[in-house]
Structures are given as C-alpha cells and as structure tokens.
C-alpha cells in the first residue's frame, strides 16, 4: 500500500493505482472524459489536470501512477482555471442540441460544465465547425459527430474489448470525426456499450432514442435474464413500464458490460408482450377466484398430473411448485423444458452464452436433489398438465412443436407471463394464468457458473399476476402477501417542482 495525499486528505492506495483512481477513492470530484477504468489510458481530453507537489507544471491524473508520499490537488486556482478553459475548448464547437439530445440529463458535458466550467452564454452564438449529424453507425447505434468530444472511448472499446475495430477517428484537428470504415458497420453484439461509455450524446441507442427523457425514469438494480451469464443491470422504468437496461459493474460476472441482445429483455416484461389477465378456454376472460376454482377442480379430478417447467423461474419458485407436485399431488412427473437444447456450452468469449435460460443450473440442482426431472421429450399424455411457460419468448424456436405435444393431454393449465396467441385457439388449454416476470418478484437465480444472485421486486406491470410461490399457496387456499415494488402516486404530482432552482 502507498500513502498519498489527495486534496489534503490522507489515503492509502494499492500499488499501481492511477492518480485519477486515487481521487475517486478519496471521494474527490475530478473532471475527466477520456479515462475509463476498463479501457487503456488515452490522455486526450486533458481535463484531469492536477498539481503534484514538487512538480512545476500541471499534469494529467489518468496517466500518472501514485507513488509513496505523493501529494496532489485539483483545488488550486491554476488547476481550476486550466480545467475551466479546457472545458470551454470542448464546448466551443458544440451544437446547441440539448433540447433534442437524448443524453441531456445524464450528460457529462452538462454535468462537468456546471461543476467545473465558467459561465456560458446560453445563446451559444459563435460560429461552429459543422460535422455530420444523425449518422447511422449500425443496427443499434446512431452517431452525431457535432456532439462528440473526441474522447476516443468508443474507439478503444471496439479495439480492446470486442476486438472488432469497427470505429476509428478520421481527419485531423477540429475536423476530426468518429466513423466506421466503408462497408463495415458497427454491428457487433456489444455495440450499445459504446452508448453507455460515451460521455456525451454523440452516440445514442436506436432502441431508446426519443422514447423518454431520462429524468422521467427511475432505476433499480436487477439482473439480465437473457442468457445464463446473468449480467448485473439497472432497470429503468416509470409508471408506464420498463424502458431500458444499463450494465452495473460486477467484476465477478459481467465486468462493465452487457450484450445488445440482453438489453432487449425488458421488452418481455412490458404490457404489450404480457398475459395480463386470467383466461378460460378460447381466451374467455374470468376473475382470479373463478380461475382458481377451475384450476383446483381440474387438478383434483385428474388421476394423473404432470408439470412442465423451463429454466426461467427462480429457485424459490422451483422449490415450492416441485414440492407441491411431489408431496401434495404425489406426482413424480416433472419435466424440464429446455428451450435452447444442446447449446449449454456455447459461449462467444465475452459474455453471451448459448443457454438462453437464466436459471437452468438452479432447476437442475433442485430436480436432482429430489431425484426427479425428465426431459420434456419424454412427456406422454396425462389428465391434467400444468405448464410453466417461458418468460422471454424471443429465443423459443420449438414453441409450435411443444404446444402440439402439450395438448395431447386432456386438460392443460398454462402459467406464463408472456402472451402466447396460439393458446387461444387450442381447445385443450382450459386455463391461462398470468405469472410475474423476474422484475416483479423476489428470488434467487443461479447462473452458469453456479453463482447465486438475488433479485428483488422492481415495479409491477401486471398487478393481477402471481409468482409461482403465490400460485402454490393459493391452490392450497392459503393467504398470500404480495410486494408491489416501487409505487407511483395515484394523484399526478410533478416531482420536478420540488427541485426547482437547483442544478
């Protein structure tokens, strides 16, 4: 450990720490654009200037290693002045785009200018260098070169993390622009990460563009259930539903990133793709009480019952529904529906895995503990079949074939969060009951490496829906308590009013 002094605060840092990291460890604000902990040092924005004792001129903190007894500050007048004019250089050719820019509200140019910059003229009426706007970089990302501060984070990302090298900086001086090479669009499966690390609104995500202003969204930590890696994410939502995911740093699981496919998982949790109410045969709506009466009748009148589950529910739910079948209903017929069979070991080398079920490991563990579990291909017809359908339908390729097999049973009870249109036409599907998605329940998911991750209720989109644990309790006529997550006030209030006048 090395002792050093940051803005007169004594701290100890491990050997090999960069000075900018030491500032972060000491909780000191330091202006910076180009430095990112996961990428190499570029040292091109020149904003992280500090005064180091014994050094006659300012130096950048991101490219300086801490040494024993080092004393550095960014509070001196000369440093403040340097950073101020550095920022003005970044702003001088910047367009007056904040009203139409998706980054506004989480923009580092806005934030850092307010913190470290000088006052500016809001008309911004100087002549500017004009560059390309609304450039389509690839299937997920749009570039606005005028807003770019040329920090080169995105370029370093494609060269160091994905190693696909799609992006580069072209031309020189104030005409420099980020761009792609001819015929080589930015189409890798990690491209939206460049949008996250871009400190300004130069790179925006096509999926999220103009959907919401970021200040209308709340966020809460959860995981991604797009595959068995289980990347940590923040889910952004408001009272209308979910809008986007952004990765959260977890060095053991996903590092700093997540894949583009995983970012679309939020769609399966929104109203449009959900089974919203209880439905009888041919999609006739019914109440929750009616539905449970029908379900109890179907199960008690059946001689043989069976259960089909996918690897998309939580461990707690598996525990309760499998025990219910084994101990209460005395049925040993429990089948694992693997929606991406034979792809367990596929891995793209960075994060994404072939197994698109977030909790295959957890399900297998519980099944083997109980000495149960056959593959869904062994399913034969029974009197009443309970199917727990997949939550995320986008990768389920064998749905039609599986449904054909399920309706060979006399009565099918379908429990699922996703909307499956085909079920309405099937006479043997006697009941559909809505389930909660993973963002609406508390539980544990076990990823491919056996790491357990807990999720908590973020916000409920479908108030009628149940977790499987609730379903089991209601089937046995027990009371359930449901957590609704973040609640929004019934009376519309403008919470920005309270912050009026603050930056």
């Amino acid at each position, binding site marked *: 450990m090395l002792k050093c002094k940051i803005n007169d605060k004594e701290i100890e840092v491990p050997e090999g720490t960069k000075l900018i990291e030491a500032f972060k460890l000491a909780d000191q604000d330091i202006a910076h654009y180009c430095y990112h902990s996961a990428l190499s040092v570029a040292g091109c924005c020149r904003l992280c200037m500090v005064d180091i004792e014994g050094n006659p001129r300012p130096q950048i903190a991101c490219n300086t290693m801490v040494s024993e007894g080092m004393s550095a500050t960014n509070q001196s007048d000369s440093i403040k002045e340097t950073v101020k004019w550095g920022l003005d250089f970044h702003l001088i050719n910047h367009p007056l785009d904040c009203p139409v820019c998706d980054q506004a509200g989480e923009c580092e140019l806005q934030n850092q200018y307010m913190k470290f910059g000088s006052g500016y003229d809001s008309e911004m009426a100087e*002549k*500017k260098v004009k560059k390309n*706007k*609304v450039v389509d970089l690839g299937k997920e990302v749009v570039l606005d070169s005028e807003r770019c501060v040329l920090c080169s984070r995105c370029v370093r990302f494609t060269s160091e993390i994905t190693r696909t090298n799609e992006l580069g900086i072209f031309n020189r001086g104030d005409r420099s622009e980020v761009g792609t090479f001819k015929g080589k669009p930015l189409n890798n499966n990690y491209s939206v990460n460049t949008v996250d690390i871009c400190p300004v609104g130069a790179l925006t995500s096509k999926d999220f563009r*103009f959907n919401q202003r970021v200040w209308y969204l709340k966020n809460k930590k959860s995981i991604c259930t797009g595959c068995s890696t289980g990347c940590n994410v923040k889910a952004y939502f408001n009272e209308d539903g979910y809008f986007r995911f952004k990765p959260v740093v977890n060095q053991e699981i996903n590092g700093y990133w997540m894949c583009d496919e995983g970012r679309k998982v939020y769609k399966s949790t929104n109203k449009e793709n959900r089974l919203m109410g209880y439905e009888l045969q041919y999609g006739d709506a019914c109440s929750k009480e009616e539905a449970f009466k029908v379900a109890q009748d179907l199960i008690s009148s059946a001689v043989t019952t069976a259960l089909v589950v996918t690897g998309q529910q939580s461990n707690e739910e598996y525990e309760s529904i499998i025990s219910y079948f084994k101990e209460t209903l005395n049925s040993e017929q429990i089948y694992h529906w693997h929606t991406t069979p034979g792809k367990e070991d596929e891995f793209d080398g960075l994060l994404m895995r072939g197994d698109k079920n977030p909790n295959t490991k957890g399900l297998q563990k519980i099944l083997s503990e109980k000495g149960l579990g056959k593959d869904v291909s062994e399913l034969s017809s029974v009197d009443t079949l309970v199917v727990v359908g997949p939550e995320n339908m986008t990768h389920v390729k064998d749905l039609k074939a599986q449904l054909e097999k399920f309706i060979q049973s006399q009565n099918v009870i379908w429990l699922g969060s996703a909307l499956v249109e085909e079920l309405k036409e099937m006479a043997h599907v006697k009941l559909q009951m809505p389930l909660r998605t993973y963002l609406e329940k508390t539980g544990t998911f076990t990823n491919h490496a056996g790491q357990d991750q807990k999720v908590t209720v973020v916000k409920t989109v479908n108030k009628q829906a149940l977790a499987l644990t609730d379903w089991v309790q209601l089937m046995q006529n027990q009371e359930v308590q449901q957590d609704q997550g973040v609640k929004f006030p019934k009376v519309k*209030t*403008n919470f920005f*009013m309270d912050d009026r006048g603050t930056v």
Partner: protein
Amino acid sequence: MSLVKKQSDDLWYMPAILSGMRFTFKTMLKNLFTRPDPKDKLAHRTYNYPEEKYEYSPRFKGNHILTVKKDGSLRCTACMLCATYCPASCIKIIASESDDKAVEKFPISYEINILRCVFCGFCEEACPVDAIRMGPEWQTPGLAAENFDYDIKKLAYRAQLEGGIPSRVDDVERHEAGI
C-alpha cells in the same frame, strides 16, 4: 399560536368599501340613463355577453398556442421541458424521429389537458425555442362531450390563428449563419 387574529372593532375597512360602492353606483346609473358610445367602448362598462366580447391585451395569458416554422410545420422539438416544468403535469408529449435530419426529433402528439392547467405560463417560460405561447383567447367553456385535451390541431392550427403563429427562433437562419 393561531395566525388568525380576532378582528378588532375599528372600522378601518369602511372607506375602501364605500369608495368601491360609489364607483359601482355611479357606473350603474350612467349605464341606465345613457346610450353606449360605439367609439369609446370603455365609457360604457357593461357588455352584452356573449354577443359582445371583451378583447384582452395580447399579453394576456390565456389559451396556449403552438407556434410554427416558416414552412408551417410545428416549431416544437419535443424536448419536454415544458412538461417537466408544468406544475399541474397537464402536458403530454409523444416524441418521434423525423425523416428530416435537420429536425431530428418532433412531437407526434402534443396534448394539454386544459382543465388541469392553471395558466401559470411556466411552459412558455421553459420553452427554449418559443414553440409554446399563451395567447389572449380565454373562452374555454364546452359541453360535457367536448374534448378538453387540446391536441396539436387545436393548439397550433385552430381557425382563430389563421394558419399558425410563426416562432421567433429559427434554426434554419442559425444554420445558415454557421452557428
């Protein structure tokens, strides 16, 4: 401690009331015994509403107007600053991507729930491009079936506006000047 003081017995409020009554009675008698002067409307202070309507000054903060660009399209960029600033949360905007790269973002729907609006004028104040203004029209009554969610058609192109009020902030001019 109560903040409401018990009223004292002195009659300090009487002079003001009496001078108000004097004005009222003077006007009433004048209106009863003289004819309206068509040249000087203010001389005769009673109007035969709703046949005759009082014209407010253009600075009056009444019904909203969405201004338009030179080509007649909406000036609003769907930045949602007005909706963010609105204390009554009565502005609802849905933004979309425009085919015109110079426009980039525009509202496909802009609705003001005029019954919730408190006519504070904050939306006008928040708008960076002079896209929303409050005009001198103030009559907002309607029948039960009337739609009080004013949409783009009503806010920008209602008959009284005669094809739209031009905005003072022009992007095209800025771009031509290289700004």
